[in-house]
């Protein structure tokens, strides 16, 4: 029998072991091909051609995926080989050289690989249209071009080339594993402990301290510190995670062991000792899974939150469906004509008089930059006008109630320190001092100016009388702003094109919610898509790594369960033992990943979401959206747990 025939025979005999292997390999091929094809897809290229950022984002995302595919394939290949240790050692026993065994394995990998390559690419081609549609639907909801069913020869060629290289690397790493085998191990493999770890209190405490320090750093409410601290936070939390699984968790297990009342309960005795027996070989995998789950769940939670809040984001920025200030008188009629032509019902139209003032103030410095100087001009509203504007708008802002002699201050950007710096500031309007009692973040009422003040109606009137508040027209700026709300503002593409094409003359600011909404949908949709794609890949890789490890363990533990059955363990107890044996291995990393992600979302909230969701406590709202994704992630992960449990049970009962 030559090597080739032997390889074929092995594949046939190891069919069952190969199925999961083929599945994960096939999925990797599918991922890479789909990804490459997406990047080459004409529709996607066309849709994103105006913005090179997206190409960059997709490319760097592709590289991350490729690195993990490589890591995953090599490590699952290695554990696959270890699972076949007995078989391979037997070849060695009969005098086959390591090189020949390596060649045999390489042949097997290549044969199975070629099949999976074909299957994976086939699936990729089959789903290519769906994927492109999915991406475009998420990020370009108004894209109307035809998405074609494509076979991409370039992507096929690159995928095939990449995987042949990967197969060669797998072959080399397999050879390394084979050289590590000792023939003696064949005869005592099961008897030797994989190395128990007692762990230590020190490492347990240290790991917790590191993680908590990372969490605290991540929860600081300053954008500046959080952005600077991103790398230290990552280092703290990742180090903490690995230390926890290397030394902390074994310590927790040995602490459980010391509590005899819990430990001596039948199912605990068997499962805890089995888990702690495997701890050393699985600790790194568990820690990696915790980190990957954190990355993936943060990615989908961020994407989903952004995506779900795109509309909110648009209106908290714009306030209305259409806003313009300045411009020719005919502009208004033109807009009306366009709206009428498209049979769109106007829900609201208002013209706001714009006024401004130039009070004396001290210079305010926020984070080493001049925030406010004597040069700055304020947009000024009376309480009544502001409340009317807010009530008409689609923002989440609340009506102002201002005490006499005081004012509210509104600023369009969110930055730590502005609120505390501006609060209680006194503005000198010659006769009166007006004190700022509340700081609000909004870009709605500025209409071209950064600083906005709201005064009580009396103060406003008296300052107008004394000429300290002037119409903006007198300073050469637009004197009125027009705001409009109408039907189908966010989804009527033709209407928007027509509006954009109206000649506007000297108009200073003309903005539609449609445009802003579609811009944010493009970005958020892409982030969302990347998040889903990445979590899909990570879930599959981590779960199949665990699957391999547990199935291998099941083969070794089978005789133990047989023995337990002999001395009289009931079926029910056996099921409980299997559950208690597998649940910690699957769900401790998941739980830890999600806790990491909860704090990562806190950081994301500080940096991004608090600008978008302008409610009092945006973090709670963010957590709400994230929870949906955590549940989805947990559910998919749970399915893999059930598959593994079923397979584990089948093996030990066979």
């Amino acid at each position, binding site marked *: 029998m030559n090597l080739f025939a032997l390889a074929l025979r092995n594949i046939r005999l190891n069919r069952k072991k190969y199925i999961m292997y083929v599945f994960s390999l096939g999925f990797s091929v599918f991922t890479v091909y789909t990804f490459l094809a997406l990047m080459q897809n004409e529709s996607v290229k066309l849709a994103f051609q105006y913005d090179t950022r997206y190409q960059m984002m997709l490319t760097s995302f592709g590289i991350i995926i490729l690195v993990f595919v490589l890591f995953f394939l090599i490590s699952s290949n290695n554990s696959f080989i270890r699972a076949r240790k007995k078989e391979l050692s037997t070849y060695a026993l009969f005098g086959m050289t390591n090189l020949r065994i390596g060649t045999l394995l390489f042949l097997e990998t290549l044969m199975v690989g070629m099949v999976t390559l074909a299957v994976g690419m086939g699936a990729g081609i089959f789903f290519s249209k769906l994927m492109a549609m999915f991406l475009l639907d998420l990020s370009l909801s108004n894209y109307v071009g035809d998405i074609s069913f494509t076979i991409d020869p370039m992507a096929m060629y690159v995928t095939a080339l990449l995987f042949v290289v990967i197969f060669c690397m797998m072959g080399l790493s397999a050879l390394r594993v084979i050289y590590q085998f000792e023939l003696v191990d064949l005869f005592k493999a099961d*008897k030797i402990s994989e190395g128990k770890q007692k762990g230590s209190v020190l490492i347990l405490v240290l790991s917790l301290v590191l993680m908590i320090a990372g969490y605290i750093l991540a929860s600081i409410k300053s954008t500046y510190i959080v952005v600077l601290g991103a790398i230290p936070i990552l280092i703290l939390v990742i180090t903490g995670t690995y230390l926890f699984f290397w030394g902390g968790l074994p310590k927790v297990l040995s602490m459980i062991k010391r509590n005899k009342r819990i430990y001596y*309960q*039948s199912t605990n005795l068997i499962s805890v*000792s089995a888990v*702690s027996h495997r701890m050393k070989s699985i600790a790194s995998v568990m820690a990696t899974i915790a980190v990957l789950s954190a990355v993936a769940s943060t990615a989908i939670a961020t994407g989903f939150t952004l995506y779900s809040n795109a509309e909110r984001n648009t209106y908290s920025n714009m306030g209305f469906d259409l806003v313009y200030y300045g411009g020719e008188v005919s502009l208004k009629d033109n807009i009306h004509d366009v709206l009428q032509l498209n049979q769109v019902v106007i829900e609201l139209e208002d013209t706001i008089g714009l006024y401004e003032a130039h009070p004396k103030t001290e210079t305010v410095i926020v984070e080493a930059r001049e925030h406010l100087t004597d040069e700055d001009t304020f947009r000024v509203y009376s309480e009544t006008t502001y409340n009317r504007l807010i009530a008409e708008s689609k923002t989440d802002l609340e009506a102002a109630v201002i005490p006499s002699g005081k004012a509210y201050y509104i600023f369009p950007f969110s930055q730590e320190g502005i609120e505390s710096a501006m609060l209680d500031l006194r503005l000198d309007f010659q006769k009166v001092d007006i004190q700022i009692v509340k700081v609000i973040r909004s870009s709605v009422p500025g209409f071209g100016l950064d600083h906005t003040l709201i005064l009580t109606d009396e103060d406003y009137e008296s300052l107008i009388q004394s000429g300290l508040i002037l119409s903006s027209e007198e300073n050469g700026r637009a004197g009125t702003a027009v705001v409009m709300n109408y039907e189908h503002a966010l989804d009527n593409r033709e209407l928007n094109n027509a509006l954009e094409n109206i000649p506007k003359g000297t108009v200073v600011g003309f903005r539609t919610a449609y445009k802003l909404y579609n811009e944010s949908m493009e970005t958020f949709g892409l982030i969302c898509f990347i998040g889903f794609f990445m979590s899909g890949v990570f879930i599959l890789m981590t779960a199949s790594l665990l699957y391999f490890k547990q199935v291998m363990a099941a083969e070794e533990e089978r005789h*133990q369960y047989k023995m*337990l059955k*002999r001395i*009289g363990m009931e079926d029910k107890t056996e099921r409980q033992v299997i559950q208690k044996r597998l649940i910690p291995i699957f769900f401790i990393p998941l739980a830890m990943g999600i806790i990491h992600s909860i704090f990562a979302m806190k950081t994301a909230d500080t940096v991004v979401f608090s600008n978008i969701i302008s409610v009092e406590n945006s973090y709670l709202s963010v957590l709400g959206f994230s929870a949906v994704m955590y549940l989805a992630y947990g559910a998919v992960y749970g399915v893999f747990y059930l598959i593994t449990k079923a397979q584990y049970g089948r093996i030990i009962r066979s």
Partner: protein
Amino acid sequence: MQVLKVENISKVYGTKKNSNRYTALRSVSFEVNQGEFIGVMGASGSGKTTLLNILGSLDKPTTGKYSMNGNDIGTMHKNELAKHRIENIGFIFQDYNLLETMTLKENIILPLSLMGKDVKTIEAKLEKLAGDLGILHVIGKYPYEVSGGEQQRAAACRALINNPKMILADEPTGNLDSKSGKDLLNLLSFINMEYKATILLVTHDVFAASYCQKILFIRDGEIYNELYAGNDKKQFFDSIIDVMSMLGGERK
């Protein structure tokens, strides 16, 4: 007092249509009384392991009936059988069958913890038994850290800890050197005397069998002969050899 009563047990492998039908046991009947130390001998393939599996309720007879303490075992369900095994039977196997993920101590207390006993009862029983069997000093170690003899003694300890009605030992000395084997046999005798334990020892080792009070010889699935130990151990040993050579099994 009668512990075990076996009536006309037969075991046939393969289905009726199958030409590979193979009869492992043919109408075997015997009784075991409390405190007896019985050996079962026979050549390979004579059916002695099948018999042990049936007595241990790991396997069911094709026909026939057997009862322990008056309870008919054949009619029990799977879970009742598990309960029956853990409460009434202690197993000692040739390859010890200790869990390598557990220390000897944890291995020994397994049956008690499966039965849901509380910590105090468990500790008290363990202390006494492990002391009697002389493994108290290695009890915190893992199976691969101690010798085969110590592993087998731990296995004996596990078999005894729930005060079973009967101990089934399947070639317990098979993997031990002669010194350890002899120690273990002395230990079984000690258990038999001290704890009044009923022991059924399956073996093809004449020396091991000579520790029993009574020996059943099995050939081709039938009880071929019975031997009782007299006062003279040497004579008993010789007569076992005679029977065995007639059976065509062990020649020594």
